[in-house]
């Protein structure tokens, strides 16, 4: 699963959960990979352990620090910075170059195209599912409109920046 963190200055960090190993009912290991501008900038395995009802975090299994449990929030704060959090897909506003033009944001494979040309679509509707980095990404529509043209088909392996379809 991937998560987009976008802060007030529109700086963007993409955090991929690239591995999950469940050791026991109260011990789980995650591998996170972080991307900035589609570049892998950091990758780390971390362990979460539940103890006496609280979560503890470790990177080596020896030293542990307490962390707060939280459900997926809309915002993540760090000191004075606020990140908006989008999980699994990019928010419509950011789903490709022009409002109506959906471009691939990273190399990937078209898993499914959910509309055909001429369909009326609304802002936020999922148009395409793109598999990238072992994750399925719902590509949402940025505007209300009609599907003008589709330039790809299911199964296509695409580079980054390819125009998939246009809405007007």
């Amino acid at each position, binding site marked *: 699963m991937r*998560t987009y*963190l976008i802060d007030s200055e529109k700086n963007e*960090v993409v*955090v991929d*959960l690239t591995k*999950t190993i*469940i050791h026991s*009912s*109260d011990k*789980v290991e*995650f591998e*996170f990979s*972080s991307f900035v501008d589609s570049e892998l*900038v*950091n990758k*780390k395995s*971390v362990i*979460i352990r*539940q103890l006496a009802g*609280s*979560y503890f*975090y470790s*990177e080596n299994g020896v030293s542990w*620090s*307490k*962390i*707060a*449990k*939280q*459900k*997926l*929030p809309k*915002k*993540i*704060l*760090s*000191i*004075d*910075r*606020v990140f908006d959090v989008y999980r699994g897909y990019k928010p419509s506003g950011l789903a490709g170059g022009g409002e109506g033009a959906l471009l691939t944001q990273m190399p990937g494979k078209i898993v499914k195209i959910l509309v055909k040309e001429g369909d009326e679509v609304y802002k936020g509707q999922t148009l395409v599912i793109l598999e990238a980095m072992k994750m399925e990404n719902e590509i949402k529509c940025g505007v209300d409109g009609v599907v003008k043209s589709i330039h790809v088909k299911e199964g296509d392996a695409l580079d980054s920046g390819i125009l998939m379809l246009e809405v007007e």
Partner: protein
Amino acid sequence: MKTKRVLIANRGEIANRVARACRELGHTAIGFYTDNELNAQHLQYCDEWIHLKGSTNAETYLNMDAIIELAVQHKVDGIHPGYGFLSENGIFAEKLNKAGIVFIGPNVEAIKVMGDKATSKALAQKAGVPVVPGTSEAVPTIAEAIKVANEIGYPILLKAVAGGGGRGMRACYDEDEIKKQFEAVGRESLSAFGNGDLLVEKLILNPRHIEVQILADKKGNVFHFFERECSVQRRHQKIIEEAPSPFIGEDEELRRELCETAVRLAKAVNYDSAGTVEFIMGEDKSFYFLEMNTRIQVEHPITEEITGVDLIVCMIQSAFGEDLNIPSQEWITRSGHAIECRICAEDPITMLPSPGLVTGFETNFPQGVRFDHCLFKDLEVTPDFDPMVGKLVAKGIVRSVAIRKMRAALEGVYIEGLKTNIPLHKVIMNEETFIAGKYSTSYISEIAPQDKINTEVDFTSIYKKMAGIEAKRLGM
């Protein structure tokens, strides 16, 4: 002692605090919840929960008639107003007396006298309490203001009679500035406090804000519980307090003089509850009466920590005419040093309020830390209410130990989803001027610890948050 029904006309951490005092006394604590705070966390310590309809403060915690009506309806013996809201409102206290309900605070007269800058200053002077040189009555004209300024010497302060919390005042370093500012400040004060009258006061440079805790009963016994220093302020609002004052330090002579002066003033106004006499102290250790807060104060815990007394419990006992079981002033001793950091929902650098939803909350403290707060996972901090969500208090045998404990305590507060000033407190607890105890009220503006906050976001901190979220998602 018959147990009483005590209504708490407040919210947040102070409502918790009062309810816990009632719990100890065996009284029934009755709490309010409002339309915009149905899940008021302070109800958790209350025995009875009452709906106070409305959302704005005017509709709810400032709504005297609604509160009194509910109080009568629920057969309340007394109301504790906490701080803020109606805590220093003489009319409210009067209405309660008429309704036969005990106002858990001082007598109406004391509230009214101390509620007005001019009359309180006059009383102080009559009681031989030093006041900041200047006028005790409003200064009608610019000419008059300049005349006074020339008598007491520059710099001077133009100050709204009805002002407070640092609002409605302006410093003037010469005659021209008075001419420039006088009418402007007057207009501001009129719109802000409904009263445009101004005082002229000598401006004390590099002042310390030092206050004395008073506790009195209805039998004429007035005690002090030593002083607190509250000089670390932003926008004239305290963010860190200590007891005892590092500026007074070992000068027991000065300490006794200050505290006895406060008691003298309290006696002069026939004070009969918990209250605080605020002083301003110059670098030459001369001190002047500022104002008396006729209520319990936010920072009361540090006094409780060094004296071992429960001020809220005593305040309630005093209100119901009970004995405080305090044989004498000498019997009251202090030991150790306590520091309070106010935890506020605000940007640590701009120090501007930053409301939000608390998406996660945990603590992991060293021994002997006290955290009076109203935090819980899912707390919605709205702009409706004060941004202060908690008070972190650390005590040690000496100041350096208290600071050491506070550092560890600050590391042990995990609040997700909310900007807080904890990063600022962390810097201050390691900043040399503070550690040396040599700070004045201009500490924040001059030393600017906020500029030393490291705002860099590292991947570990992000992974910690993400991991907590993913683990929760797995239902762990």
